[in-house]
């Protein structure tokens, strides 16, 4: 022991006077953030270059793609309804902007509230901060800043290319670009602050009902959105995109242009900033736009104060209230799902069945896993169930071609979403066994059986929903039987290949030091798995989509080239499927063999 503690002069008032001021607390938190940020950046640039490069590169690609899309869209709008200042232009663009921003506004409310809940009530860091002499409102604000950042980065990634593209398409003056960041930041602050206040109020008043209320609100918003989209598309086919359809749609979404909505202030501010100076010298666009910026800023600042005020009064009480709930004791029995799974897997050995059922139980009892699965596949199902617009013109060759393209794109989307799940949930499975490997390692079970069990669990578990989704898409698009069969074959190959890759690479590059599956998946091996998975999906889908595409066109119209005659096309199609099967075998067998070899020699 180096020295003894000096007893403090216990003039408590004096000690407390020295505690940091409100501003100083803020500075200390900024210092904390900048230190963590600097260390994190150093780590990303030295230890995780592949992932960092991939994220930055893909984000840039995404941004440029969106920019190109929006730019061509706005150029088309300008060619049809004139430049800003023309009444039709303002109406059309206002319709697009308000609809876009009102949707994001609702999402920001939910995401900020949910992220704040996780940061404030379920984080071990909060416990540390709560025992330090930090003001409650400062603690809430510190967490709110995180919620603001994490919930609104998507908004900026989506909205910035759109806004820049609009500015360039209409040759907006310089102050449009000067106002743009301030308008967007002030706008994003408002729904995020509302989400934060709603979160604090909910947790302080009815903490036990929080999941039901948030879930109910999300279902209600989804139902409204679904109904709006459905009723917009549910107009006789000939009318779609016609004048009456547009007027009807314009009227139907009147509620998105309410004068009291921040999304309307943002849209009006942008439109005013983009329009040219009118002949009337008293009409100054930069002043009109500035007024909307002031409205947004003042509301954001008032809500900022409201967040602090609510945090100061409600946080600690709500934290204590939330942690006063009685722990729920769940009595688990052998579920019917396990019994059904056991019967369905009758062809496998008993050891394999037991290992698969163990993984199935862990999956079922982890809401993080199945809820994400449910949300993504549920959204896909919703989309596939409404993708039958092409049916009405199926005699037209160009529409037939689009039907075929869309059906293969749908297959690729299913594969890409599946690849994110295999990376996020299947790839870390072996790493997560590390801490409990003493159980599996001592069991009288071959190590190969453990790995094959995980492979079968992933392949069978993913094949059922994926095949179902692809079938729904095909039925709704009314594609030919040949395409249905090809899709089902490819879907099976994707499930087997992606599972083999995730399990094999997971065993080859395990990470036993990190207990968090998301961090394991975000490492080098997980990123590599995601990239290889995406390449595999694109390759397999392209190899079968192109021959299938030409085959269908050739059977419905005159094709000019000899190579596109029937006998060649059969060869193309057969070769495409053959190559796909060969690639699937390679991406399954090679990683699994490497993974099995590494797993047999594994010492934990």
């Amino acid at each position, binding site marked *: 022991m180096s020295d003894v503690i000096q007893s403090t002069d216990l003039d408590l008032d004096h000690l407390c006077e020295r505690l940091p001021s409100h501003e100083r607390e803020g500075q200390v938190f900024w210092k904390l953030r900048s230190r963590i940020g600097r*260390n994190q950046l150093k780590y990303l640039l030295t230890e995780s270059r592949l992932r960092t490069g991939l994220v930055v590169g893909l984000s840039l690609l995404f941004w440029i793609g969106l920019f190109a899309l929006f730019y061509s869209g706005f150029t088309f709008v300008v060619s049809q309804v004139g430049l800003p200042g023309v009444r039709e232009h303002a109406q059309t663009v206002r319709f697009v902007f308000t609809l876009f921003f009102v949707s994001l506004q609702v999402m920001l409310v939910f995401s900020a509230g949910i992220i704040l809940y996780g940061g404030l009530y379920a984080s071990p860091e909060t416990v540390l901060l709560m025992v330090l002499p930090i003001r409650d409102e400062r603690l809430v604000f510190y967490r709110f800043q995180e919620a603001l950042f994490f919930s609104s980065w998507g908004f900026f990634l989506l909205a910035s290319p759109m806004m820049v593209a609009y500015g360039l398409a209409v040759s907006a003056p310089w102050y449009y670009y000067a106002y743009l960041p301030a308008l967007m930041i002030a706008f994003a602050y408002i729904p995020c602050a509302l989400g934060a206040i709603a979160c604090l109020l909910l947790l302080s008043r009815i903490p036990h009902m929080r999941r039901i209320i948030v879930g109910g609100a999300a279902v209600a918003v989804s139902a409204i959105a679904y109904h709006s989209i459905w009723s917009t598309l549910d107009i006789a086919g000939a009318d779609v995109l016609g004048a009456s359809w547009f007027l009807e749609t314009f009227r139907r979404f009147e509620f998105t242009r309410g004068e009291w909505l921040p999304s309307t202030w943002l849209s009006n501010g942008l439109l005013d900033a983009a329009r040219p100076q009118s002949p009337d010298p008293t009409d100054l666009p930069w002043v009109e736009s500035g007024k909307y910026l002031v409205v947004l800023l003042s509301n954001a600042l008032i809500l900022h104060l409201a967040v602090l005020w609510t945090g100061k009064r409600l946080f600690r009480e709500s934290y204590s209230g939330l942690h*006063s709930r009685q722990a729920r004791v769940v009595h688990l029995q052998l579920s019917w799902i396990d019994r059904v799974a056991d019967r369905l897997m009758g062809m496998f050995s008993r050891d394999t069945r037991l290992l698969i059922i163990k993984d199935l139980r862990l999956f079922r009892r982890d809401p993080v896993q199945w809820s994400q699965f449910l949300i993504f596949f549920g959204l896909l199902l919703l989309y596939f169930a409404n993708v039958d617009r092409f049916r009405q013109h199926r005699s037209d060759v160009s529409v037939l071609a689009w039907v075929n393209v869309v059906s293969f794109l749908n297959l690729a989307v299913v594969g890409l979403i599946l690849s994110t799940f295999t990376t996020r949930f299947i790839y870390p499975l072996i790493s997560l066994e590390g801490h409990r490997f003493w159980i599996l390692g001592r069991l009288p079970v071959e190590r190969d059986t453990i790995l094959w069990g995980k492979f079968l669990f992933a392949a069978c578990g993913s094949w059922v929903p994926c095949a179902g989704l692809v079938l729904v898409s095909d039925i709704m698009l009314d594609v030919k039987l040949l395409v249905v069969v090809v899709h089902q074959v490819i879907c099976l190959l994707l499930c087997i290949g992606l599972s083999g890759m995730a399990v094999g690479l997971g065993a080859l590059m395990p990470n036993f030091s990190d207990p968090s599956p998301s961090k394991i998946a975000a490492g080098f091996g997980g990123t590599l798995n995601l990239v290889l998975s995406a390449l595999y999906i694109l390759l397999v889908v392209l190899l079968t989509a192109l021959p299938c595409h030409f085959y269908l066109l050739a059977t419905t119209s005159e094709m000019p080239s000899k190579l596109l005659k029937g006998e060649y096309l059969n060869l193309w199609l057969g070769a495409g499927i053959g190559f796909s099967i060969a690639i699937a075998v390679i991406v399954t067998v090679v990683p699994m063999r490497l993974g099995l070899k590494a797993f047999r020699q594994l010492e934990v």
Partner: protein
Amino acid sequence: MIHFRCVTRTYGTHVAVRELELSVAEGEVLALLGHNGAGKSTSLKMLVGLLRPSSGVVEVGGHDVIQHRREVSRLIGYVPDQPYLYEKLSGREFLQFVADMYGMTSAESREAVEREVDRFELTEFLDQLAESYSHGMRQRTVFAAALIHQPKILVVDEPMVGLDPFSIRLVKDLLRTYANKGNTVLMSTHTLSIAEEIADRVSVMRNGELVFDGTVGQLRQELPAAGESLESLYLALMKE
């Protein structure tokens, strides 16, 4: 220095702590004992302001911990059972952050960090990121953070779990020396031998109620047939 005045804490219909009356004086080491779920950690969390009592008052240095939370937090250093460190901060950066939050100047902060680094022998790993720390390194860093502002009271929840013999010796010496200087230590523990070795007084909780409060000698007098060691006395008390 610490007073629990008829403190009750419930989780739904379950009573975790029932009408707890407990005081700890200056210069005293009190070991709070009890089975899992007896109410020890809940009592400590109420003391440091993480949880609020359903009824009753917890006072520290004459201040209600709910009404005067910031003042009370200046008096207390807390080492939780599952300590948190920022993975992407080094031990030094973490200690400086805690010192800053107690309003220390840069010079005071540097001096306090050096003092705790020497006390807990952190030099070897102080400038490494916390993500590379072993459990013992983490625990020693958290102890250093809890003492950086030289509090009058040290509250420790399960201080010895997972520590190596060197760290255990370090912590035991610290707790005893700390109390000898007129400070107060309240620790919750399952390690009865350590409680017997360094505690001035033991308080035993069972199902949320305080079933014994006194010295080990008094417990021996109360249970003369139970044996000499705190372990045998504790087990006998729990069987009653």
